């Protein structure tokens, strides 16, 4: 087991493109860190640099205190689960899992024991003699994880491991990964673009955008106190509403013709702001002065989304289905002051 420390990591490709622009953070021993961001934000590149599959252009990567910038992937004591599983198609499941151990000259009876243990944990014992092609997507996923855990590495690296599975299996495997991490306690770094995976798995989320870190925190911190409009709209589904407005006076912001009360902190009157409001934190209040003009409604089952406008700007609210008429065209709402997030209109940073 080990902690992982990154210091000012950069990746510059020969063409001059800078994929990762100076990233530093530390993952404590046994932590589960999720790197999340849209495609092309550099999260996979960062993971591959930690794995040793890409050269680190500058900066320091330490695993358990040891500088590993120039250490071969095999000698970093890590294991990686790839998006396409990368199982060796010409080997049986057993040989796939034993391969890394055989390369390290582990005695054959030790290999047998470890593979059997891993197979038991992952419930793939009946599959050991099969070839990967004879397995379903979920089974391949398990084998890929089995190959990682038999090695007993110090760090697990996951590169979007669930994105090739169907929705139902994804939820199932997500839970399995969480359980596995709980029982093995190995430091893990997990890359995904799916914010639900990030929220559910992580005890530390690193939100990345365009090669930089937008925010680091626990899932709750990132959700409750997004540091930028990027994080605010990326984490949480449906996405947070962002309304253009300005600080009217201490304690209220003006959005279009209406006013919303909130914490304005020490923002000066007249400051241009973006007002962030999560759809589910809006309460219905019939007859209230604040109203949403509804254009259409979406049924989600446990909740209903009303798409409409507030003060001329797009706004989505999420309520329990029986709380209002599905065909309503205008809804009175109440926005609690603590549910309002204010961001600087120019920089997008939290005020």
């Amino acid at each position, binding site marked *: 087991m080990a902690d992982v420390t990154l210091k000012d990591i950069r990746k510059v490709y020969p063409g001059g493109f800078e994929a990762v622009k100076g990233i530093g953070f530390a993952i404590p021993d046994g932590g589960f860190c999720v790197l999340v961001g849209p495609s092309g934000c550099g999260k996979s590149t960062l993971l591959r640099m930690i794995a040793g599959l890409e050269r680190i252009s500058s900066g320091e990567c330490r695993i358990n205190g040891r500088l590993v910038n120039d250490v071969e992937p095999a000698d970093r004591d890590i294991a990686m689960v790839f998006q396409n599983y990368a199982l060796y198609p010409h080997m049986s499941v057993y040989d796939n899992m034993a*391969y890394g151990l055989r390369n390290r000259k582990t005695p054959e009876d030790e290999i047998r024991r470890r593979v059997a243990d891993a197979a038991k944990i992952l419930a793939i014992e009946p599959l050991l003699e099969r070839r990967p092609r004879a397995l379903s997507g979920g089974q391949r996923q398990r084998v890929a994880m089995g190959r990682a855990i038999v090695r007993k590495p110090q760090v697990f690296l996951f590169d979007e491991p669930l994105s090739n599975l169907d929705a139902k299996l994804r939820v199932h495997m997500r839970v399995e990964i969480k359980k596995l991490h709980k029982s093995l306690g190995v430091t893990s770094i997990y890359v995904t673009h799916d914010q639900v995976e990030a929220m559910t798995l992580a005890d530390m989320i690193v939100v990345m955008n365009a090669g930089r870190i937008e925010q680091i925190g626990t899932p709750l911190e990132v959700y409750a106190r997004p540091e930028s409009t990027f994080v605010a709209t990326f984490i949480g589904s449906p996405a947070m509403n962002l309304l253009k407005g300005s600080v009217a006076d201490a304690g209220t912001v003006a959005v279009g013709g209406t006013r919303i009360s909130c914490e304005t902190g020490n923002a000066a009157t007249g400051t241009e702001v973006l007002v962030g409001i999560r759809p589910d934190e809006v309460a219905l209040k019939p007859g209230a002065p604040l109203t949403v003009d509804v254009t259409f409604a979406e049924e989600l089952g446990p909740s209903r989304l009303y798409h409409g406008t507030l003060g001329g700007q797009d706004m989505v609210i999420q309520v329990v289905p029986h709380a209002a008429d599905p065909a309503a065209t205008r809804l009175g709402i109440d926005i609690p002051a603590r549910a309002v997030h204010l961001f600087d209109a120019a920089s997008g940073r939290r005020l």
Partner: protein
Amino acid sequence: MEKRTVFSGYAIPLALLAPQLLITVIFFYLPAGQAIWQSFQLEDAFGTVSQFVGFENYKLLFERPEYFKAIGATAVFSVLVGTLSLALSLFLAVQANKALKGASFYKTLLIWPYAVAPAIAGVLWLFLFQPSMGMVARLLQQWGIPWDPLLNGNHAMILVVLAATWKQISYNFLFFLAGLQSIPHSLIEASAIDGATPLRRFWTIIFPLLSPTTFYLIVVNVVYVFFDTFGIIDAVTHGGPAGATTTLVFKVYNDGRSGGDLGSSAAQSVILMVIVIALTAIQFRYIERKVNY
């Protein structure tokens, strides 16, 4: 599920198959049949009289030491050319697959020899290695290495093996490179993380995954060394000296065309055909099992 198209009647399927069948019949079955028929005939040098002699042509062949010599030469030649051209092209393809800069230039250079006609390739090598005027031959002589492919049978064999190998490397290289490029990169990365050294990675991951390509190339190369190397041998050594580089296919041509012994030539080509068919069958029977498709 297998998809099957059901035709009513025979007209359309027959029409669709006809071109392929026609070509096979005209260019393979008819000549092959004629060769078999001819191999039972004894014909005079002018082709005016012919007489049915049964297996006499075959019997005579196996009574002559030259024929066994040709079998020996063919065995040496084909094993050397087959092994060398496959091994070298695989090595070159692996290197080309690693190259980042100038990869396409490198590939183009390696593919060019394939566009050279066999006879011209042969002449090219002859010019390089001809004892009295060849550039390489003179260098060898300067260094005190004895070199005379015109008189020394082993030297002549080395020369045709080199020329035939050089000619075939392009083709093999192209297929190996395509095969290598179809191996997912993540498998190589996974094996790197799994602690396999580059050499071990090659033998445990890359080589097994390349086996369909290798198998195909073995089949093609066997046919190549047995039949298509005729042009090179004809241009470089003309089967000499003293029959040292007379392979079976060259002997077929030499005895029939130059020697005028059509019956014996036909018998030899039938034997050659049987050998190649047998080799191909063995490959499919035994080697194909080890292929991971």
